[in-house]
C-alpha cells in the first residue's frame, strides 16, 4: 500500500466548468480517507483524477513515490471499486476474484496463488465455490474487495459503493468495510455524500464545497469544531444550532438571554454565530437561569433519545434529550447551554474564529 499526494489540482472541463479550483491533499499509507460533499462539489472528479480516468488541467498526483500524471489508469496500480454488488452472478466467488488476472492472461499457477492469498486475508476460503446469490451482503462485499485486491493495488478508490443498498444492509456493510480496512491497513479513498457514512468510516474526512475543501479533520474534529458554517451545517443530524450571539461581560449572549460560554480571545461587542450541537443544550422548566424561554414545537421520541424543537427568541433550537424527558408539544420551557465553549463563526466570512 502507498500514500497518495495531490498538489495544486485543478480541473476545468472543455465547456469551461471549473470542477476543482485548487486542491491539496495528502492521504497517508494505510489511511481510510473520505471525501464528503453534496453532488457537484468536485469529490468524484478528484477521485477520477487520482484513478487516471480524468486528466487534470493542472497539478500533480503522486502515488507512493511515483508521479502518475502521465500514466494510464491501468498503469497506476490503483483499484477502483464500484458498487459492491457488481459481481458476475454466473461465476463462483473464485472465478469472480480471479477474473482481472485471467483477463490479463496471467499463468494459472499465479492466478491460483493470488486468489488463495486474497481469500485467506478476507476469510473467504469456505465460500470460494459459491455463486454471489448464495452469499450475504457482507460476503459479496468481501468478494468484490478480493477481486480488487488480487491485482495488488497501491490504493483502493471507492465511489459511493453503498449508495443503492437498503439502510439495514448499508449499516452492516459499513462495519464490515471498516473492520477489513483496519485489519488489512489498506489505503482507501472513499467518496460519499452521506455524512453518517463519512463519520463512521473515515480516519479523516475532507469536506468539499464547490470545488474547494472546507475542512480536513478526524470525525470528532469536524463534528466538534467545524471550520466553517458550511461544514457545520453539513455534518450532524439533527442539525447544529447556529445562534446569533454577542460578547457581553465575558460570555456570549443570544436573544432571549441564552448564555453560551465564550472562547478566550474575543473582543467585547463582537457579533458572532455560535455553533451549538443539539446535545449541548438542555430543556428545563420555565424560569431557569441563563436560559432562553420558549415553547416546544415538536417532540420526537426516537426510543434511545428524544429530539425537541423549541421555538425561542433566538430561533428554533434543536435539543437532544434522554428518552425520559417529560416535556410535551406546546409546553412552555427554558433551554440552557451546557459545557465548554463552542466554536464561533464570523457572520461575514462564515469561517470559524480562531481562539
Amino acid at each position, binding site marked *: 500500500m502507498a500514500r497518495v499526494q495531490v498538489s495544486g489540482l485543478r480541473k476545468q472541463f472543455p465547456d469551461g466548468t471549473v470542477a476543482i479550483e485548487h486542491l491539496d491533499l495528502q492521504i497517508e499509507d494505510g489511511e481510510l480517507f473520505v471525501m464528503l460533499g453534496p453532488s457537484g462539489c468536485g469529490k468524484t472528479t478528484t477521485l477520477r483524477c487520482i484513478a487516471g480516468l480524468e486528466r487534470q488541467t493542472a497539478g500533480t498526483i503522486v502515488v507512493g513515490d511515483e508521479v502518475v500524471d502521465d500514466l494510464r489508469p491501468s498503469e497506476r496500480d490503483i483499484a477502483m471499486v464500484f458498487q459492491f454488488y457488481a459481481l458476475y452472478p454466473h461465476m463462483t466467488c473464485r472465478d469472480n476474484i480471479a477474473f482481472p488476472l485471467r483477463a490479463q492472461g496471467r499463468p494459472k499457477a499465479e492466478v491460483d496463488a493470488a486468489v488463495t492469498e486474497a481469500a485467506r486475508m478476507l476469510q473467504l476460503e469456505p465460500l470460494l465455490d459459491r455463486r454471489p446469490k448464495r452469499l450475504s451482503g457482507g460476503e459479496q462485499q468481501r468478494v468484490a474487495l478480493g477481486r480488487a485486491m488480487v491485482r495488488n493495488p497501491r490504493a483502493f478508490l471507492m465511489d459511493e459503493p453503498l449508495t443503492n443498498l437498503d*439502510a439495514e444492509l448499508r449499516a452492516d456493510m459499513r462495519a464490515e468495510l471498516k473492520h477489513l480496512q483496519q485489519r488489512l491497513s489498506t489505503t482507501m479513498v472513499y467518496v460519499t455524500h452521506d455524512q453518517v457514512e463519512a463519520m463512521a468510516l473515515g480516519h479523516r474526512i475532507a469536506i468539499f464545497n464547490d470545488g474547494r475543501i472546507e475542512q480536513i479533520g478526524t470525525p470528532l474534529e469536524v463534528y466538534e469544531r467545524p471550520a466553517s458554517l458550511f461544514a457545520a451545517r453539513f455534518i450532524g443530524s439533527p442539525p447544529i444550532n447556529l445562534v446569533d450571539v454577542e460578547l457581553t461581560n465575558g460570555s456570549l449572549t443570544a436573544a432571549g438571554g441564552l448564555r453560551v460560554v465564550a472562547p478566550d480571545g474575543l473582543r467585547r461587542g463582537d457579533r458572532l454565530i455560535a455553533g451549538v450541537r443539539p446535545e449541548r443544550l438542555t430543556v428545563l422548566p420555565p424560569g431557569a437561569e441563563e436560559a432562553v424561554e420558549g415553547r416546544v414545537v415538536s417532540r420526537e421520541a426516537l*426510543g434511545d433519545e428524544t429530539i425537541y424543537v423549541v421555538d425561542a427568541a433566538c430561533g428554533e433550537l434543536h435539543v437532544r434529550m434522554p428518552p425520559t424527558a417529560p416535556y410535551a408539544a406546546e409546553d412552555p420551557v427554558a433551554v440552557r447551554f451546557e459545557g465548554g465553549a463552542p466554536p464561533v463563526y464570523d457572520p461575514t466570512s462564515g469561517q470559524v474564529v480562531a481562539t
Partner: protein
Amino acid sequence: MSAIRAIAVSKAFGDVQALDGLDLEVAEGAFFVLLGPSGAGKTTTLRVLAGLEKPDAGTVELDGIDAAGATPAARDLAMVFQSYALYPKKTAAENIASPLTARRMPKDEIGREVRRVAELLRIERLLDRRPAQMSGGEQQRVALGRALVRDPRAFLMDEPLTNLDLKLRVAMRTELTRIHRSLGRTFLYVTNDQVEAMSMADQIAVLRNGRVQQVGSPAEVYDRPVNRWVARFVGSPRMNLLPCRAAGDRLTGDAWALPNPGYATTDGRPLTLGVRPEDLSLDRHEPAASLPATVYATEPLGDRTLVDVEVGGHRLQVKAPPSVAYEVGERVVVGVELDRIHLFDAETETAVAR
C-alpha cells in the same frame, strides 16, 4: 368512538394476500402511523379505508358507521401521496384552490380558505409561483395544502416525505406534527421509515404480511416489542440478538452467561436474547452482568460512537460515548443493563413474558 375502524379486513390481488384479517382502530384526532416494510399492506389498507379498493372480507367503519355502501367522495377522507402531482401550469394558490373550484365554492370564500391554509403551512410567499419555480419541499407543502383546504373527516397520507432529502424530511416531520396539532384532525400516516413513525405518531401499528403485529405508543413499541420481528424493525441501530437458553437462574449462550432477571422460562428450549445498543456499555459493568467480547470496528458518529463487537461469534453494536478509542481485535467486557433485556422464543419468535 373511533374515527376509523377496520375489522377483520382481508384483500387479495391474485395469489397475493395483501391484507389478512387486519384489525385497526384509529381514535378521533390521533396521529396514527401504519409502519411496515414494502409489501406489508400499508397502502392497500389506506385504499380500502378510502373506498378505492373493495375488501374481500371484513368491515370498514367511519365514525361508528359501516362504510360499505359509501363512495370514496362520501367517505370524505383526503389522500396525500408521495408524488406531488401538482398542475404544472397553475400557481400554488390555484393548485391549492382546485378542490374548492371544482365544488364551485364562491370566489371570496376560496380566497379565504387558501390564505388560511397557506398561513398554516407557512407558504404565503409562494402563492403566485408555479411548481417549476419551487423546491421539492415547497411543492410537497402545496400538495399538502390542496388536501387541507377540504377540511375532510381525516387525512390519509401515503409516504408523503419519501421523495425529499434528509434535511427537508427532518424539517417536514416537525411541520406535520405542528399542523396536526393546530388542525386537531385525525391523521393516518403510512411509512416504511421507523424514525418517521417514532418521531410523529401518538400510536403506531406495525404491519407485516397484511397483519397487524403490534399497536402502541412509540415508547411501548420500542420498549416492549411483542416479537423478534418488531424488535428488529423498530429502532436504529437495530436491537442486538444472541441465541441462548435458560438454565436454572442463568441465561447462557456461546461463551457467555447472564443472570436471568426473572423470565419464567427454565425448560431449556432455544431462546433469543435481545438487547438494544444503548443498553450495553463498555465503561461500566458488573462482573455478574457482562459479556466477554472482541472489538470488530468502531464507528464515531459525533454525538456517540458505535462500537461493533463480537461475542461468541455473534456481532453486537454498543452505543458508547463519542471519544472512545479501541483497536480492532481488542478484548473488552460489555456491561448489560439486565432490566432492559428482551427474550424471544427462538421458534415462535414471540416475546417471553417476564
